[in-house]
């Protein structure tokens, strides 16, 4: 009975985190992006600096009519948002935020493979949406999504493999237990590759070709309205949280910090994740969208060689230490 309660409590907490943190990131994006462009951003909803803007947006989305195009493949069209969103929920389950046993939703032996595999599944949602919408812009968006995923999954995996080699384990808490501060300069190239490839996999600007609004309206999500559209947006922000959390855990040492590791390790994790989320927003504001061929070129001619070089470096250092 106690075990059941424990599992239920963990699930509830993870679900709450999953519902709240992406909204916090979204609100931060509203405000940071506004100020980076010399604007104020939302100011009314909720009274104080528009803190409840996303809640209001959610209410608005819930009120909208849920339209399914006449020619669409109904069932797949309606299933796609869930397929896009659920994997991120599962990934958050596996990210450890503190050193103790209770600070992770579920310890998974092959943690790296789990998170990368499940994140890859999330893209299936975009593909299904793109195909099932019976809209040529949606189809183009789906195609671009697929091409982008195929190109960026590889450098992401290679960069993660480099960390796994360094730690000698593929379990996320295991990697953090093995972490030393000098891994930071050692794995810095891998960290950059992982972060950039993750951004591309999430279709965040400047890698937002699949939803390029000036070219293909909103890509795979063109035909969506109401709550289903909101779920896609939520998936994007949950993806940011997951990517930043993973980069923190794999490359920035998670709960390790200059001081206060024992009791306040989770603060370090959250702090690093928050800084990375800020960087994600910062990059979105700063850079224009890449063109499709530039996107592919970046993946195949820059990121993959860099990731391979990182693996070679990791191997050499590892052998030298032993």
């Amino acid at each position, binding site marked *: 009975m106690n075990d059941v309660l424990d599992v239920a409590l963990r699930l509830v907490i993870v679900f709450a985190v999953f519902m709240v943190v992406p909204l916090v990131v*979204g609100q931060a*994006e*509203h405000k940071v*992006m*506004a100020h980076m462009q010399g604007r104020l*951003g939302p100011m009314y909803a909720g009274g104080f600096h528009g803190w409840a803007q996303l809640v209001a947006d959610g209410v608005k989305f819930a009120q909208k009519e849920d339209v399914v195009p006449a*020619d*669409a*493949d109904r069932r*797949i069209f309606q299933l796609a948002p869930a397929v896009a969103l659920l994997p991120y929920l599962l990934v958050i389950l596996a990210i450890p935020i503190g050193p103790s046993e209770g600070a992770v939703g579920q310890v*998974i*032996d*092959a943690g790296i*493979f*789990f998170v*990368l*595999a*499940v994140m*890859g*599944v999330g*893209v*299936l949602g975009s*593909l*299904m949406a*793109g*195909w*099932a919408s*019976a809209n040529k812009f949606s*189809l183009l968006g*789906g*195609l671009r999504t*697929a*091409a982008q*995923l*195929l190109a960026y*999954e590889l450098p992401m*995996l290679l960069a993660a493999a480099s960390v796994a080699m360094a730690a000698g*384990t*593929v*379990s996320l808490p295991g990697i953090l237990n093995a972490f030393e501060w000098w891994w930071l300069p050692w794995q810095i190239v891998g960290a950059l590759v992982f972060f950039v490839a993750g951004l591309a996999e999430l279709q965040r*600007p400047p890698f*937002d070709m699949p*939803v*390029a*609004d*000036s*070219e293909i309206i*909103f890509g795979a999500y063109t035909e969506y309205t109401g709550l289903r559209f909101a779920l896609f*947006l939520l998936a994007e922000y949950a993806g940011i949280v997951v990517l930043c959390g993973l980069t923190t855990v794999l490359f920035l040492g998670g709960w390790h910090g200059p001081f206060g590791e024992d009791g306040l390790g989770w603060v370090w994790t959250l702090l690093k994740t928050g800084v990375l989320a800020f960087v994600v927003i910062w990059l*979105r*504001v700063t850079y*224009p*969208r890449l*063109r499709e*061929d530039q996107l592919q070129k970046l993946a195949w001619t820059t990121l993959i060689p860099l990731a391979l070089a990182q693996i070679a470096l990791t191997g050499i250092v590892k052998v030298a230490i032993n």
Partner: protein
Amino acid sequence: MILSATAGHPGFLSPTGVEIAFLLVGLATFGAAVVTVTTKQLVHAALWLVVALGGIAVEYLLLTAEFIAWVQVLIYVGSVVVLLLFGLMLTRAPIGRSPDADSGNRWMALGASVPAAGALVWVVVDAFRTTWIDLDGPAQGSTKASGEFLFRNWVLPFEALSVLLLAALVGAIVLSRKDRQDRKDRKDRKDRPDRSDGRTAGQVRPDTRARRTGPDRTERPAADREDNS
């Protein structure tokens, strides 16, 4: 890696919860696989394939082979099916039935697949026979166990497979390179000015212009996305 036989298994007539789950997931996977090959809708077939492959991953998980399960999801669901869908969308992916996709080789396919499936089942059954896995003990399919097993006992097949994949990779590169060489030859022939015939020169010009203003040469940053700000 799951060969560690344990003596004294409980027998078939008193199944545990895991065994029942294994059987049910197996049935679901089999059903998804059957739908995959019988459905008339191309993209639905690919999506049912996702279900079938995911079911297999769940079976691995139930057998405590966690690493294999996640790799199954990563490679097959995350990459192979995405590639499949990509190919379908690029060529033809109509919504609804596509009866013309049936090649009419149903009997031949059946004739090829039934013996193949029979052979596989027979090999697996014969190899493991009454081997039982102890699910309650330490996970026998963990990453560590898989790694040790793979790189101690099965290094040679592993390396042979990697050489095979390398050969495939080199072959793919050679094929694409050859194609480019062909195009270059054709272009050289076209670019050579043919003074006796003015029409040839006229045909060349649009081609070269298209290349000069191709997507590689123009740097045109698009505007930032303003969707949900």
